[in-house]
Every structure is written in structure tokens, then in C-alpha cells.
């Protein structure tokens, strides 16, 4: 272990600001990337689902017109 205590670890030998800035920004970037990828997937699936429903409605309306 390179550190003797938890506060020693947080202090990073006087470089705490730079070290945690680097780690924090990287973590946020990765979280944004994951969130964007997951949300994109959900959006695509939702769009496809809506389109399928719309196609069904259009087909149903056409069938009704033919009966009338």
C-alpha cells in the first residue's frame, strides 16, 4: 500500500486536485458515452414500435374502407 491513511490517499501527495480531476472527468465521459448508447437504443426501439402500430392502424383503416 502506497498510502498510510484514507486522508493520505485523498491528498495524493499534494496532487489531489489534478489526479481526481483527471479520474473524475474520465468517469463522467464514460458515463455519458454509456448513457448515450443506451438511450439511442431505447429511442430506436420506440420508433420502430410506433411505426409498427401506425402501419397496423393504416392497414385497419384501409380494410374498413374496402368493406364500406
Amino acid at each position, binding site marked *: *500500500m*502506497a*498510502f498510510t491513511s484514507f486522508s493520505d*490517499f485523498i491528498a*495524493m*501527495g*499534494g*496532487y489531489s486536485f*489534478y*489526479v481526481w*480531476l*483527471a*479520474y473524475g*472527468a*474520465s468517469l463522467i*465521459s*464514460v458515463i*455519458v*458515452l*454509456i448513457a*448515450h*448508447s443506451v438511450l*439511442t*437504443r431505447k429511442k*430506436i*426501439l420506440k*420508433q*420502430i*414500435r410506433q*411505426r*409498427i402500430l401506425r402501419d397496423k392502424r393504416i392497414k385497419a383503416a384501409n380494410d374498413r374502407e374496402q368493406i364500406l
Partner: protein
Amino acid sequence: MWKWLHPYAKAEDSYALAGKLMPWFLILTIPSFIIGLVWGLLFAPADYQQGDSFRIIYIHVPAAMMAMGAYSAMAIAAFIGLVWQLRLAEMAVAATAPVGAVYTFIALFTGAAWGKPMWGAWWVWDARLTSELILLFVYMGIIALYNAFSDKVLAGRAASILTLVGVINLPIIHFSVVWWNTLHQGATITKFEQPSIATEMLIPLLVMIFSFATFLGFMILYRFRNELLKREQHRAWVIKLVHAKERG
């Protein structure tokens, strides 16, 4: 010999294969990330010159290496897509670019946070830093170009051509520390001699590089599946898949 690969040129099979591979990449990523992080932050000894600020290396170097690795993979996909007109390869290009861009951003940002305490400046127009910044711009250019066309066949071709043009930047980044006098240090691991880093610092670094590589693979597969769904949304297999999701 390579005929077994052929069915995977079918979108549906590629989607299934990517889905099958994804958990394996995740299983490799998570433990290696935890081990590398704890080892690098807690157990690796402080540098004799840089103190604990050197711990930024455990994200800076893996991100920078894999930003270039992602670009190489993307360039191969772009070449395959252009030569054999494989739409799937172009989708792989579109899937890789955002992940590579984020890695490049991480490399630049952590580099700045490391440069400030060590060099006294967040940023210098040094050859390594500048060529890495250009890599970020190339990535962003590829993403923008792909999204600029509503015709995705055209978009894929344009983005692939830009990808191949941007390959010229890779050797420039790698050799920038040799060809020019840079503030950035030279190669530590990727050279022919012994790595010039203590073993107890090197091992967690290699673990982190491995973790960043497998996470890159995971994200590419995830976004590749997104791309497939979007581009094939009118096909029967996608509609069937969406129906199956609703039921189960």
C-alpha cells in the same frame, strides 16, 4: 477456410453474434478495471520525481493507446466497406467513431490535468498534443459527416473515405515524440527495448490497457447493434425482434 465467416455478413446473424459476444467483453472489462484501478491508485509506488501525480498514467496511457487502436480498427472496417461494399463494415465505422472520440477526449483531458502540475501548463502546442487534438477533430469530422447524409449508403461511403484519409495521422502521433522536440515524453512501452518503467508500475498499467481495450470492444458492439437496428428497421427480422421483446 474462411467460409464460416460468410453468414455473418447477414445483418441478422451479425446482430445475434454481437449480442452473444457483448457479455464476454463486459465480463473481461469489469474485474480488470477494478484490479487495475485499485492497484494503480493504491498499491503502485509513487514516482520518485512526479510523486502521486503520475497515477494519472493509469487512464491517460490506456485511453490514448486505445484511441489509436480504435482508429486502426475503424480504418480496417472502412477499407473493407469501401472495397467489398459491405454495409456492415460501414456500420462498424459509424459505431466505432464516437467511442474513439471519447477515448481521445479522455487522453487529452487527463494529459492536461497531468501537464499542469508537471510542466506548469495545461496545454502546449507540442507535436504530440497537437497531433492528438487533430485525431479528436478527425473523429468528430467522421461522426459529423456520417450524420450529415440522410442517405446512409452515401454517408457510410463518405465517412469511410474520411477515415482512410485520417490514417496518415496515426504514424504522426506515434512518432511525433521522435520526429520533433517535444515536451511530451517518448515511448515507454511501445518500443523495441525494455519498457522504461518499473515493473510494479507497469503491471497495473497493462491491466488497465487490457480493461480499456475490452470496454472499447463492448461499446463498439453495443453501438454496432444500434446502427443495425436503425438501418434495418424496415426489415422483417427487426420487426420480429421488436415483437418478441414486447412479449417477453
